[in-house]
Structure formats: C-alpha cells, structure tokens
C-alpha cells in the first residue's frame, strides 16, 4: 500500500500531461500485450502482477533526489547535463539514445553520457565509486539511470540516425549482432532471431518483432531473480558470458554499437521504464 502511494508520488512529479511517462509502466506493457500475440510478453502473470509495485520505482525516486542534489568536488547538480535534448531536459531524451554528442564527437549511450557529466560537470574523478560502480540498485548509476530513463516511459523509441556516426554505429551493431564467434559458434541471432523459442524454460524475445523487442531493451529493469535493478550494459555482459565470448567493457564503442542497433529495432514501440524482468 505504501509502495502504491509512493508510486503515485513518483510518477506525478514534474511531468507534463501530454506525454505519458506518468503512466505506470505496467500499463504500457498491458497495451502491448493486447496489440500482439506474444509468448514472450505473456510468459509471466506473476511478474505482471508484481510490476504494479515494482521495486525499481523506488530506485527511480532515489535517482531523482540524486540527480538534483549538489554533489561532487564542484558541488553542483546534474541539472545542466545535456542528454541530447538540451541541458537538464530529460523528457524523451533516453528514447533517442545512443546518440551523437557534439561536445565529445562521439556516439554515447546513457551510461557513458552520465559518466561524462559526472566527471566534467560535477568533477568526480573517474575512479570515484559514484562513477565506477555500475551494478546494483544501491549504486548511483542505477539510481540516476532509472530516473533519467523513466522520463521516456511510454514514449516511442526514436534513435535519430541524423549524424553519419549514428548510422555507422547502428550498422556496425547489426553486423556484431549477427556475428557468430566463440566456443559455441553463437551470435545474438542464435537466441533472439526466432519468435517464441525457449532457452531452458525462458521464452526469448525476437529482435524481428518490435513489440517484443521494446520490452527486451527496456532497461533499467528490476530482475526478480537477482532482486536488483539492472542496466542495459549488465544484460549485454550476461549474454556475452552465455555465448562464451569475451567480456564486453561497459561503455565501449562495440557495446554502444550493439545498443544503437537494438534500440533501432524497437523503433516506434513504447518504452517500458522501469521494467521488471525474470
């Protein structure tokens, strides 16, 4: 009950009425489920029920406080950080990431952009725990990422592809997605290239079905099996581990290329942020 009250609080603050980030993400998911016949989307009634009180909504709240707090050696907030829509403008920003940033000359995902702002604006050293620790609901990263992404809840994924580097990274990401390597000859396609297939007991999302793929790429999500809020980069690392390939470096260009492709494959479908996963 308390959680419910908090949820209402969490989603009513500072969000204009015309967009829909204020919707409970579970409603976005339910609309998707009604729009398509998908074994992946419907595999867990239990998760659907639990999502009403998704613990990741707390992480969003904590991230909100952290985002606006004056922190770091320079004692300033992140309110001047530009995630692509202008300084401090968060609404819909994540749905268009990864994207090209003029100030760094690079295509950046949310995690690397956050690192950029924490180190340049707030003056955190790169090895400060606030910057370095990426995994777990208690890290600054998961809190901030959860808050920033929640401002794109319900909005269609819309990576720009205006700058040549955005297109180049997306296209390289596609090649990487289909590139078989490692001990087991696997690529991402092995497990995410057909509809309704199971690895063990889990139904896997199909990259070719945008209504499934939007849920697949909606991170941060609370992972019930881990009892933690997890990021896109964490998911990617897990899949490379299963494939018996090399461990990806978070925020590295290859990971951003994959994220560029995976976001493009969900284009037009509403983001579910924060989500809940197995």
């Amino acid at each position, binding site marked *: 009950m308390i959680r419910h009250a908090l949820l209402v609080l969490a989603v009513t603050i500072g969000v204009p009425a015309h967009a829909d980030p204020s919707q409970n993400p579970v409603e976005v998911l339910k609309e998707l489920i009604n729009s398509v016949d998908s074994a992946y989307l419907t595999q867990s009634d239990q998760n659907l029920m639990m999502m009403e009180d998704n613990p990741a909504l707390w992480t969003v709240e904590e991230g909100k406080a952290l985002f606006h707090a004056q922190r770091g050696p320079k004692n300033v907030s992140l309110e001047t950080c530009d995630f692509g829509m202008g300084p401090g403008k968060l609404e819909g920003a994540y749905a268009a990431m990864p994207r090209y940033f003029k100030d760094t000359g*690079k295509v950046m995902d949310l995690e690397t952009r956050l690192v950029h702002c924490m180190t340049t604006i707030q003056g955190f050293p790169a090895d400060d725990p606030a910057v370095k620790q990426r995994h777990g609901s208690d890290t600054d990263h998961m809190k901030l990422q959860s808050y920033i992404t929640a401002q794109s809840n319900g909005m269609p994924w819309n990576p720009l592809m205006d700058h040549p580097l955005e297109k180049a990274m997306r296209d390289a990401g*596609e090649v990487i997605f289909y*590139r*078989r*390597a490692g001990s087991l000859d696997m690529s991402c396609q*092995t497990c995410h290239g057909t509809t309704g297939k199971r*690895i*063990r007991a889990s139904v896997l999302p199909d990259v070719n079905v945008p209504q499934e793929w939007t849920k697949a790429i909606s991170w941060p999500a609370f992972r019930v099996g881990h009892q933690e809020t997890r990021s896109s980069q964490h998911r990617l690392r897990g899949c490379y581990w299963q494939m018996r*390939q090399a461990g990806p470096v978070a925020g590295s260009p290859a990971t951003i290329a994959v994220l560029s492709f995976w976001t493009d494959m969900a284009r037009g479908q509403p983001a579910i942020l924060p989500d809940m996963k197995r």
Partner: protein
Amino acid sequence: MMSRKTNRCATASAALASIVLILGGYTATHAEEAGKPDYAKMSPEALAEHLILESGSFDLDQPAQEGGTARDRMIQDNLQKLCSKVRNKPNAEQAGQIIAAARASIQYPEGEIPLGDWKKGGDLAWGGFGYRLAHNPDDHSTRDPSGNCYNCHALSPQRTGGDLGPSLRGYGIIRGNTEATRRFVYEMIYNPHAYFPCTHMPRMGAKGLLSQEAIADIMAYLLHPESPVNQ
C-alpha cells in the same frame, strides 16, 4: 589461419580509409584527432571488426580455458564467418562446401562407436558449465565442462528443456540403438554442420569442447534403454 589474414585485411582497409580521408582535405573530428579511423567512412563489416578487435571494447587478454586468450574466441573461423555473412542461410554451393569441410573435421574413435555411462551423460547434458569468461570465468580444474544440450532440447520428461532444437525425448526408442544411429548422433555432437549447414547447434567435438568420454556418456543418455530419455 584464414581468419587472421582477413582480420589483418580489415585493419589495413580501415587504415587505408583514413589515409584517403586525410588526403581528401577532410575536416578533422575528435575521433581523428585521437588517431582513430573515421567510423563513418568504414563499411559496417570493417567497423564491426575494428570495434571488436581494435577498440578496447572487450577484455581480449583474458586467458581462455582451452589455452590462448579471449581474443582467439572473437576471431572468426571460416565457418563462423560464412554463416554470419549469409545469416545462416547458405546457398546450395556454400552448403555443399560447409558439409564437406564438416565431414572432413570428424575424427572417430577406433572400432565401434561406444556408449558410456548414461547417468554421467545426464549430468553433462543438463549442465551449462564450461568455457564462460568475462566477470565469472569457469574454472575447469574444479569440474569438467558440460554439454549444454538442455538449453536447446527437451530431453527427459521430468524437466523442461529449451526448444531451439527438436525434442530428443524418447530418442533411443524412436531411432533405435543401432550402429547407424550411434554414428549419426556421434557426428551430430562432433560437428552438426555435416548434416545441417549453418545450424545453431555447437561443434562440441570439432572444437574440442567435450572429451571422447563425455561424448560417449551423453550418447548413452540419449540412446540407452534405461536412460530417463527413453522412459
């Protein structure tokens, strides 16, 4: 050997691309200042190779369980390269070449193909241990690597397996525990591209992932009349 050559080739063409750019009076970007090639001028394939092998995107120096490093895992062999390129749909000519190469890769035990211990084979078929790297590398000195079969196949009626591959429930009853079946199953485990070019199924024998003993045990799990698979 081949894959290393092509890899060098990709790097060379990337280098060439940046030379062409400089000569072309191109305005320098941040990337170029740092001495990196211009991603926007590379083909998606060349950029992908560059990102994977030359950009520090992966922990390529991590030691691999089979010897060598994670870098060797990321460099594609001929089969991986071809199947990736055609997205696992080879044309008739390519399929013929893949099948021939796969057949040539298969090494057989001396004499008849043996069945091992189906109980051990069950553990191996249902296990996912082995060859994982990254943040949580498998230590092969504690345990032998397993077969991962359950990820893709239904096996015994008691447990849920995956369905990326066909159900193997009752396999021994349906196929019969004959020399011909044993040969087929051995070849499938060793290198399934001999029958299904660009299949999703791994090459457990050809890549040295499973020992002869482990293969024999897993075969027993599929074919032995007392195995849960055949109840």
